[in-house]
């Protein structure tokens, strides 16, 4: 015990000494520290609201403690399972299909010999990354609106019936995946392209001398060399596997409850509990569950990676 206290004491003295020595550096980092304490660390204990019967006048910490009641309720009515399944499935598809498109396009663009065409196509494919999801919502309206949408213009001009996209829950999973790929491919493609640029040219030259065809050079040099980048992006993706892209889902689906069974994810559910149903403890319970499981997933993935291939570990 005594040893521990002296240890803390010397640590504290060291810290005071450091502050005195590097006063300016501490002052320079102070604004960031204050910001992160207020906006990131201060809300953390607020997650306690998930365990109470919230009463506005009594505040979070004055309200009655109800243990896991909110969680039991969410499991009981099937909501937690439904939104977890949706979030995981969507993210799984986004991650796999997204990386597939990004790698394929990066490889194809790197094979294009004309410099200006390379640059132009790269710029065009990156463009969707720069616009807001609100505009994506406008695009969806522009294409799938019942009365005026482009899809229905085509259908009617072909003599077919108009389709009511906004009440067809089944079709939106494809539209959501389409817009996710549409918006995200350019970003990932650039990362893969910079990895391709980093590959040693001599590898290709010696393969060429050995008579390897162009396809073989892609298959046995380019693609294997992208593995580290792929694993790094995959790890980042897995770390956020429980984090839904709220802005995509909200701007496409909005408050159209007909589509919820197939398109409700954790983040849209939490949002509705806040501004729709005003059931804060329920939303906070889902949010807490999302944070804890997200943390467990990141730590597990990182632990496994560290064992197999330490170079790829995130921390």
């Amino acid at each position, binding site marked *: 015990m005594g040893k521990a206290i002296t240890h803390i004491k010397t640590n504290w003295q060291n810290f005071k000494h450091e502050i005195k020595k590097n006063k300016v550096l501490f002052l320079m980092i102070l604004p960031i520290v204050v*910001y992160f304490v207020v906006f990131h660390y201060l809300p953390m204990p607020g997650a306690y609201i998930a365990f109470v019967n919230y009463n506005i006048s009594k505040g979070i910490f004055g309200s009655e403690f109800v243990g896991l009641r909110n969680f039991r309720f969410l499991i009981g009515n099937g909501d937690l399972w439904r939104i977890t399944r949706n979030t995981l499935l969507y993210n799984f598809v986004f991650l796999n299909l997204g990386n597939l498109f990004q790698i394929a396009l990066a490889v194809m663009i790197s094979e294009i010999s004309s410099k200006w065409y390379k640059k132009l196509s790269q710029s065009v494919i990156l463009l969707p990354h720069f616009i*807001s999801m609100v505009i994506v919502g406008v695009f969806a309206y522009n294409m799938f609106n019942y009365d005026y949408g482009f899809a229905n*213009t085509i259908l009617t001009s072909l003599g077919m019936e108009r389709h009511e996209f906004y009440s067809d829950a089944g079709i939106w999973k494809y539209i959501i995946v389409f817009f996710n790929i549409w918006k995200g491919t350019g970003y990932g493609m*650039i990362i893969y392209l910079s990895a391709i640029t980093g590959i040693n040219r001599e590898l290709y*030259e010696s393969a060429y001398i050995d008579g390897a065809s162009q396809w073989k050079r892609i298959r046995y040099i380019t693609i294997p060399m992208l593995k580290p980048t792929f694993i790094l992006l995959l790890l980042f993706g897995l770390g956020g596997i429980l984090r839904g892209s709220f802005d995509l889902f909200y701007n496409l689906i*909005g408050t159209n409850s007909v589509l919820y069974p197939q398109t409700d994810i954790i983040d849209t559910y939490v*949002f509705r509990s806040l501004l729709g149903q005003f059931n804060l403890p329920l939303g*906070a319970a889902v949010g807490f569950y999302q944070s*804890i499981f997200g*943390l467990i997933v990141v730590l597990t993935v990182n632990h496994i990676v560290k064992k197999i291939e330490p170079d790829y570990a995130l921390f």
Partner: protein
Amino acid sequence: MVLNKRHEIYSVDGLSLRFVCYFFVTIFALLCLFPFILMITSSFMTESEIITEGFKIFPKKVSASAYKFLLNNPQKILNAYKVSIFITIVGTSVGLFFMSMAGYVLNRRDFRYRNFFAFFLYFTTLFSGGLIPSYILMVRILHLKNSMLAMILPGLMSSWSIFLMRNFMKSIPDSLYESATIDGAGPFRIYLQVYMPLSIPALATIGLFQALGYWNEWYNAMLYIESANKFPLQYFLQKMINQTNVQQLIKQGIVIDVSELPTQSIKMATAVVATGPIILLYPFIQRYFISGLTLGAVKG
């Protein structure tokens, strides 16, 4: 030795593969452009054609009446522009200043607690209190409901950008710091006069990320902003697109006279006007963005 390109092109296998690459890249690029083109052509359609036949890529008749309408009733959209420009400038410059300073401190070898502070920032990417506690903090404790600060503060600083800054500064030789110290400059002056000018590529990249985030801001506006005169551009647009009844549009000041209104083309024209600045600036800013992605690929 340099590859003989000419020979390669004439080999049958290389030629067909190259054709496949050109083909798919072109198809995908066109797919990326398509929604933009449809939005623009729709905004130039006459209302009667939209109502009878729907939005088209090749309208029968081209009309600028939607834009004329926006030009004659510019107050609301101009105001939304002003709000967006304001939060973009303030948020970007303030965030950039504090984040570059933090990146500089985290890079100083003589700063003993740099790893502790780096973890302190990194931990927030692993665990968070969630939306509900943050909302309660913003509204009940900081009293930011309906304040412009509610749109600026949440995105002001990110640990990711701070680490990007620090990683960039790692490439600046320490000898510069040492010689400036010998000349009698303090840490803040070295930051301002030595490190800032050398960090312009990183500053441009992070500034671009910040500015893009603020320009595309709608989420915090939806959570916290109540009065229409504080709506940023994207949120204004979102409200307008989701508005199906004309009465609401009149209340929002988007539409004034109910009869003969180009409502549908106005929606599309507003979207074009809101995206315009990004499309116009895009050719100039994208290279900073690309270099930033490459910088960010270095792991924190």
